[in-house]
């Protein structure tokens, strides 16, 4: 159901996510001071290697973490076979990478 490498990947992605989530929340609180506008956000993120890297890593860690976590939950609640679990995990990972990747691309490079 959950092999040890997947377990490690989930733990490592959690370790990456913990500071990034705090950073994300901190920036959100800072950014809404004095109103929120698209120009202000894009002014900060567009062509920024730093924000592109931060949110790129964020998306990667989320995709790994959520896909493996969902795999465990589905395995325990519904008990499908290993092949179905693998398929579900890769689909969720790919889906999150695509959606997140598009969003990061839109605010940094587009």
């Amino acid at each position, binding site marked *: *159901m*959950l*092999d*040890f*490498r*997947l*377990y*490690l990947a989930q*733990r490592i992605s959690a370790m990456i996510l913990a500071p990034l989530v705090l950073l994300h929340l901190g920036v959100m609180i800072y950014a809404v001071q004095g109103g929120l506008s698209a120009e202000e956000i894009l002014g900060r993120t567009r062509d920024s290697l730093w924000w592109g890297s931060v949110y790129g890593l964020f998306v990667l860690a989320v995709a790994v973490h959520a896909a493996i976590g969902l795999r465990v939950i589905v*395995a*325990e609640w519904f008990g499908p076979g290993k092949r179905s679990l693998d398929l579900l995990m890769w689909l969720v990972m790919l889906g999150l990478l695509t959606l997140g990747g598009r969003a990061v691309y839109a605010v940094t490079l587009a």
Partner: protein
Amino acid sequence: MREEIGKIQVQVRRGGPDDGRLVDYEVPLLASQTVLDVVTWIQRNLEPALSYRFACRVGMCGSCAMTVNGRPRWTCRSHVTDVMKDGRIRIEPLRNLPVIKDLACDLSGFFDKWQRAEGAFVPTQTRKDSLAPIAPQEPARQAASAGIECINCAVCYAACDAVEQNPEYLGPAALNRAWTLVNDARDGGNRARLQAVTGPGGCQSCHSQQGCTSHCPNALNPTRSIAGLKQAAARAWLRGEL
């Protein structure tokens, strides 16, 4: 003969693996009476065919564990007055183990998992060598000593929701045993052991819910042992040993 001070309404799970049902009995309430005393009274006075398991009656052997009012515990060390609710007690076999008959479970799968977790000591010396010097205050020895008092009663295994959801999971007792050996300086089987406890149903299946720790009658902390195994296994993986 102790004086009867009241009555207890007892429900006991009777029957084989597939035809379990709760049967009602009325049992005299006595001072300092244990749940095992109640089961024995029913067997001697009302139901000679009642099957259950016990041996030492003093919390040494770990064979009398049952589910009492929904919680796994040693019946010999559970006073009726502590566990009774509104004058009633429900006694069932341990969870997560196949029932043989009435209150007796088949523990072979539980012990097989000890073997699967490489729970046997692997000696590194012969009788010709001198004794290994191990200081009691060494951190590894302290970690081993913290888990070594397990008597295989299977209370933790019955309390574990991860075992219930995933029958392949080795469970808290086998993994706690593996952790004591990982910390035993005299043992030489750790590479195979860490591979065994990270295989299918290994330590990574633990959700750290701590059902084992909150129910262990010996006040051990299998959750902490499993967390130790996860760390040791992660280090072994970094060294390329898994």
